[in-house]
């Protein structure tokens, strides 16, 4: 039996109210809000958050492959999945692939991973994330969202078995973006609705249900995802299913999170699924993919580290002005401070475990954990008696902090905290996803992988602390 062994999801802390966009631009407001990746997040960093959660609930998984799916890869050349794998502390001996080009890249990656797990390749991981960016005044700016989801596929201890899958690829022009362009173009809406999304949903659903001998009425939950929410609504109407069986599109709370969206919707419905439930997942875009899942008994005992519901509730607003600055849509006066230095390749490679995995060291002589990793123990000064010691999953408390209004930031002021970890170890690092007037000595924090800055085209990823979510 091959299926989902574990999953994780990630919704960034910041929300942009659609009414706030409308108020500035004088365009019609749609309801709700969208999730916004902070200035220090991107698709890679969000994928890491989701994948780390998924790995935490898959102890002992032997991951042999990783697919990173997105339409907004931080690097066009250079393997983004390698960064995700390093930060999630996957072993070097994995196949790693970036899957991109369409919002369907997410579900396609899941099907690919499921097949490689079925073929006996140990466990297969997928990490899907997107930062949907629409031009001001356009539809996508409001309907898009940022988020991530990750899955581990395997053959044992599955929580949802893959009963059937189907894929369909067609060449037609709907949404496109060429290198160097920030915003996608799209063809007239009616064309894709009538000629692509509608017929493709119809065909793919029929095919996948047919393979498993399942009728639409047998489905406990339906996850339909399309670049245009109307396409999913029309397809659901045709299926004539009970609205209670339709998965929340997250349109009002998160927005359509591109290549991560079908997966994110699925992670939202899995916690309440009962053994034997059938869940249909389908995405249309440049064709269509579909997956039919049968929930296994093990799902009853599975608890995601962060549920979608909890992530939706854990939030803080971003103003539209700040959003425009974060996305570099609104240029601002540069600071009277030097640009940050580009991190250098040799020290980054030497420090891979530290920089990407937040692996410190622990002294064998006196047991003191310390970070960054040291050769001479800070406590007993034993020399070269260190073992690697991971800090990424440890919680800590703020010993003291600084609110830096001089440092250049896209979200000033920069907050730095001295974090003392449970079990030992101290680290001075930047805080994120928090409000300056709410930081206090003693606050509990957790670590999150972020993009600190980009210099000379090099994205500088490292870890920050955030209030526990």
């Amino acid at each position, binding site marked *: 039996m091959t299926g989902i062994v574990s999953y994780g999801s990630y919704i960034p802390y910041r929300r942009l109210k659609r009414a706030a966009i409308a108020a500035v631009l004088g365009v019609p407001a749609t309801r709700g809000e969208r999730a916004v990746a902070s200035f220090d997040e991107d698709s890679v960093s969000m994928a890491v958050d989701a994948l780390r959660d998924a790995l935490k609930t898959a102890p002992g998984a032997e991951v042999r492959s990783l697919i990173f799916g997105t339409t907004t890869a931080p690097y066009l050349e250079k393997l983004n999945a390698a960064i995700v794998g390093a930060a999630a502390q996957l072993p070097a001996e994995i196949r790693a692939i970036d899957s991109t080009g369409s919002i369907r890249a997410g579900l396609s990656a899941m099907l690919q991973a499921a097949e490689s797990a079925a073929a006996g390749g140990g466990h297969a991981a997928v990490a899907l994330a997107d930062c949907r960016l629409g031009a001001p005044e356009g539809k996508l700016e409001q309907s898009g969202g940022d988020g991530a989801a990750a899955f581990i596929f395997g053959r044992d201890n599955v929580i949802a078995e893959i009963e059937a899958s189907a894929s369909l690829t067609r060449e037609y022009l709907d949404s496109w973006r060429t290198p160097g362009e920030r915003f996608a173009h799209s063809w007239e809406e009616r064309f894709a609705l009538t000629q692509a999304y509608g017929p493709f949903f119809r065909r793919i659903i029929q095919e996948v249900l047919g393979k498993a001998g399942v009728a639409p009425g047998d489905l406990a939950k339906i996850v339909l995802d399309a670049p245009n929410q109307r396409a999913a609504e029309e397809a659901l109407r045709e299926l004539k299913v009970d609205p209670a069986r339709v998965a929340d599109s997250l349109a009002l709370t998160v927005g359509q999170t591109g290549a991560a969206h079908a997966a994110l919707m699925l992670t939202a419905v899995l916690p309440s699924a009962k053994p034997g439930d059938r869940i249909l997942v389908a995405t249309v875009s440049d064709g269509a993919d579909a997956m039919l899942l049968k929930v296994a008994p093990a799902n009853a005992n599975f608890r995601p580290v962060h549920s979608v519901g909890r992530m939706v509730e854990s939030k803080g607003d971003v103003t539209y002005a700040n959003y425009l600055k974060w996305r570099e849509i609104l240029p601002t006066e540069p*600071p*009277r*401070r*030097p640009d*940050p*230095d580009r*991190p*250098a390749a*040799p*020290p*980054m490679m*030497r*420090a891979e475990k*530290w*920089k990407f995995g937040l692996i410190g060291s622990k002294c064998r002589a006196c047991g003191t954990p*310390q*970070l*960054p990793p*040291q050769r001479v123990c*800070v*406590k007993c000064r034993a020399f070269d008696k260190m073992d690697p010691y991971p800090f990424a999953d440890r919680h800590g408390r703020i*010993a*003291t*902090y*600084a*609110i*830096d*209004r*001089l*440092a250049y930031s896209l979200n000033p*002021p*920069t907050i*730095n905290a*001295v974090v*003392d970890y449970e079990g*030992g*170890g*101290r*680290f*001075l*690092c*930047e805080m994120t996803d928090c409000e*300056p007037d709410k930081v206090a*000595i003693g606050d509990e924090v957790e670590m999150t992988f972020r993009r*600190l800055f980009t210099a000379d085209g090099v994205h*500088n*990823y*490292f870890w920050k602390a955030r209030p526990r979510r």
Partner: protein
Amino acid sequence: MASKGIKDRVAIVGMGCTKFGEHWDKGAEDLLVEAAYEAYGSAGIDPNDVDAYWLGTMGSGVSGLTLSEPLKIQYKPVTRVENMCATGSESLRQACYAVASGAFDVAMAIGVEKLKDSGFSGLVVANPPNDGTPACMTPPALFSLLAPAYFKKYGLDPEKGKDVLTRIAWKNHRNGARNPKAQFQKEVPMEAIRNSPKIADPLGIMDCSGVSDGAAAAIVVRAEDAHKYCKNPIYIKALSFVAGPAEGPLSPEYDFTTFPEVVASARDAYAQAGVTNPREQISLAEVHDCFTPTELVLYEDLGFSKRGGAWQDVMEGFFDLEGKLPVNPDGGLKSFGHPIGASGLRMMYEMWLQMRGEAGPRQLKNPRMGLTHNLGGQPGRCVSFVSVVGNQIG
């Protein structure tokens, strides 16, 4: 096992110090020439009389050529030294040891920094290529870490704590208003300090030292030769310099209310000088007031106040010009700004003036023993320098 020290074996016989400030019309080389020639004149010597030079600068030049070229030094040893914000003091320490050893008879320590040419706000330090993980915090933010920790440990509510910090800045500006070489020569009302725009909460811009250009120089000889050059030299009682293991960012035992490096260098310096009760025995001190919480913590680390007691001493005026132990009588970094390589020697210049009765409107009554203190780095990860000097042997 402390350092043995060179108590009373070396004397300063001449000093020079430029005005500190925004010298748009002068480069580092101009500042060096001015400080050096003032020092030659002060000691009554010819440039050829100096046998060796130690030049302190963090970023205004590399190698001895930075000094030998503008001064046209005639084929003599010039050593460029750097030890972060203690760079100026470090050049003095090296020059003193050189004459004490007998290797040279006359040495010059000189420090300079030209900061205002960078076009940036605050200090800018170039880092070696790295993995992109070191925290990119500005100096005010790094030193602001002291404030919430100190307030919490000693039960000061943030308003009271802010009053204490404000009074430190107020005192230093009040002293600087009496100093013609200071960058800022005006008293600043407490309210203006308290309400200045926030830089790193609770620090406002008036809690921070300024950015300026400047240079200062000292001529040192063996004590037995001092009276060949001047009637009233000042004597080196102690020179201590330590670099810490940088435990603060690593060890939860460090609580951000002290600089262990300062405690260690003060202990060493007091042992060298034979000081047993600094609060009573030290007549005046120039300390590294880069930010107001730094000065607050230094009072305790240098043994001027008991632990947790510095804030009360501040409020009672203990460190004022008229107080029992005037600290930063020249106005400190607060009034002078902090041209890195020059600051340590600028502190010594105030000792030179005060010990010789030449400090004008700031002149203290019969100072006998003074202390200078410099630190470089950040709380929990720094280098510290402490000197003790006096106007009499013994």
